[in-house]
């Protein structure tokens, strides 16, 4: 009833090609942003802001980066965490070695360094594809972590490779409280998500999708294979690098290279699979699911313990959580291979016809 496009006519090209063609969508989006920028920092308490919402946003950005590469350009990668690590450590070095550098510029430097490494490890994609490529990207994951551990310069010769994020300030405002860090993260994520959305609607994005759907056909119709694939790797790594810098500066504060293991790469990959491959919205939905689900599980297990009046050992709880988590992923793949974004789309289509579906 409320969600109708009836009466909304498009009379200019600009209207025809806007991101949210429906007025209701635009209103909802503005409302969501208002809530995110104003209500959440006012209402949210310390724990929620710093332990749940900020990591959710950071991981959404990483998932977005992987989605550009895997979902849009069709190149499977298992090296996400490595690019995040490069972003984190290079942003740290930028702040450390360039006096007076704005923090956003340091994040950008982290992202650019990740993009450069991404270019190098994207080179094999010109020759190999599919699962072979996925395994090849593991080389990046292991090599980068090894290099960060070995090259003392990167962590300013700290003994165990641990770096501590410096204090941040933008135009003289210190960014120290969880709310301020949350706002900084939110700003970066919203900006980059908008950029990604527009990029994927442009010629570049369409070239990515053509390569994903069939690379031979794409090259036959004149899409430069090398440029497109390498660009996909570079952009994706840039996003992951910035996400890594945010991960270090706004979420963890103190980072060791072991924060960026293969496990993190898998978690980001799960996010885009569960959220929806090849969908910007899906990156956010998937990140929300993967971040919130373990919290629900542990709350649930506590609840069951008090309900049944038994004490479960820590090992039992964590193993049961792993089993439930794994089964849920399998279940998701079986029931909805296109992810949460697809469910959302179906819901919207139903909503358009509601309450008179015929």
């Amino acid at each position, binding site marked *: 009833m409320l969600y109708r496009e009836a009466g909304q006519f498009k009379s200019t090209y600009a209207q025809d090609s806007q991101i949210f063609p429906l007025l209701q969508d635009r209103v909802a989006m503005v409302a969501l942003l208002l809530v995110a920028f104003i209500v959440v920092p006012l209402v949210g308490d310390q724990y929620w802001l710093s332990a749940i919402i900020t990591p959710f946003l950071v991981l959404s950005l990483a998932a977005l980066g992987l989605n550009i590469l895997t979902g849009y350009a069709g190149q499977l990668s298992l090296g996400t965490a490595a690019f995040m690590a490069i972003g984190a450590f290079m942003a740290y070095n930028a702040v450390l070695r360039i006096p007076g550098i704005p923090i956003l510029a340091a994040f950008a430097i982290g992202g650019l360094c990740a993009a450069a490494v991404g270019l190098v490890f994207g080179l094999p994609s010109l020759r190999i594809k599919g699962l072979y490529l996925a395994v090849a990207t593991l080389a990046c994951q292991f090599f980068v972590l090894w290099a960060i551990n070995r090259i003392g310069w990167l962590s300013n010769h700290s003994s165990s490779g641990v770096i501590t994020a410096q204090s941040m300030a933008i135009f003289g405002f210190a960014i120290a409280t969880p709310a301020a860090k949350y706002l900084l993260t939110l700003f970066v994520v919203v900006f980059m998500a908008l950029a990604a959305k527009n990029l994927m609607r442009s010629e570049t994005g369409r070239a990515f999708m053509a390569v994903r759907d069939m690379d031979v056909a794409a090259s036959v119709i004149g899409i430069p294979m090398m440029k497109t694939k390498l660009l996909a790797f570079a952009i994706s790594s840039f996003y992951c690098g910035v996400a890594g810098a945010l991960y270090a500066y706004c979420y963890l504060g103190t980072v060791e290279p072991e924060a960026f293991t293969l496990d993190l790469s898998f978690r980001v990959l799960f996010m885009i699979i569960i959220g929806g491959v090849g969908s910007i919205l899906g990156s956010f939905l998937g990140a929300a699911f993967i971040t919130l689900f373990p919290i629900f599980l542990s709350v649930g297990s506590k609840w069951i313990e008090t309900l049944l009046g038994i004490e479960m050992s820590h090992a039992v709880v964590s193993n049961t959580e792993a089993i439930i988590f794994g089964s849920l992923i399998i279940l998701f*793949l079986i029931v909805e291979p296109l992810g949460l974004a697809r469910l959302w789309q179906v819901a919207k289509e139903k909503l358009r016809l509601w309450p008179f579906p015929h």
Partner: protein
Amino acid sequence: MTFFIEVVAGGLLAGVMYALVALGFVLIYKASGVFNFAQGSMVFFAALTFVSLMERGWNIWLALAVTMVAMILVGVAIERVVLRPLVNQPPITLLMATIGLTFVLEGISQLMWGSQPHGLELGIPDVPMEWLSERWNINISQFDLFAAAVAGILVAVLALLFQKTRIGRALRAVADDHQAALAVGIPLQHIWAIVWATAGFVALVAGVMWGVRNGVQYALTFVALKALPVLILGGFESILGAIVGGLIIGASEKVAEVYVGPMVGGGIESWFAYVVALLFLLVRPEGLFGEKHIDRV
């Protein structure tokens, strides 16, 4: 010179251990086109079940048989619950499903048997062969040779199974073309169950060998990561490739670790195998013995 021979021989024998794990991957990939990331946790599950049964005082052969039955059940269950509903999905979906499976298998095995590390003894000492070290001053572990022999027997048995039996013919037919195999009346689902059970058996053998070497503990799941470069080097579809790839990776890794490692600060074994495989792929994208893919528009 003897030192070099010793290094290469040690590397080759370590490569046999990688190949044992890689074999399980190849079996499943060949027959069902699934890249089974859960192979590592199957190895862990098998080894943990076996060692836990033995620690409860079971006879070694009985424990082996019971573990084997458990692995067959796991294989059949995986086919039934995970793979059958996912037929015709793209490879990345199947890969993700097996990663999910990894969590489930690791959770179940630690829930059943606890997570403390176990030692495993088969009565074959992990010491250098005496006559070799006396004659030529080369140290090669007895256990490594035993593992190599086991791997050889395993490959021979698999080759016999694939080449000489009715099931083997069906397996090869399914590997060649699912639809054509279905059309001539080969029951695809039975075949997949058999393949997963066989992979479970291979996982058991690999698990026992690795268990003796490193102890049965959670780190055993990471041997799968060691097997991946072997796979891309040898090609996903070839049993021979798994063996040859394992030997190449094992030897080059050891040589690099001994001669190059000290120059760059050591610890290069975590990624060196991948880089070797990667460089190799640039020359031959389908691996040593993999099938060449021809793309049609």
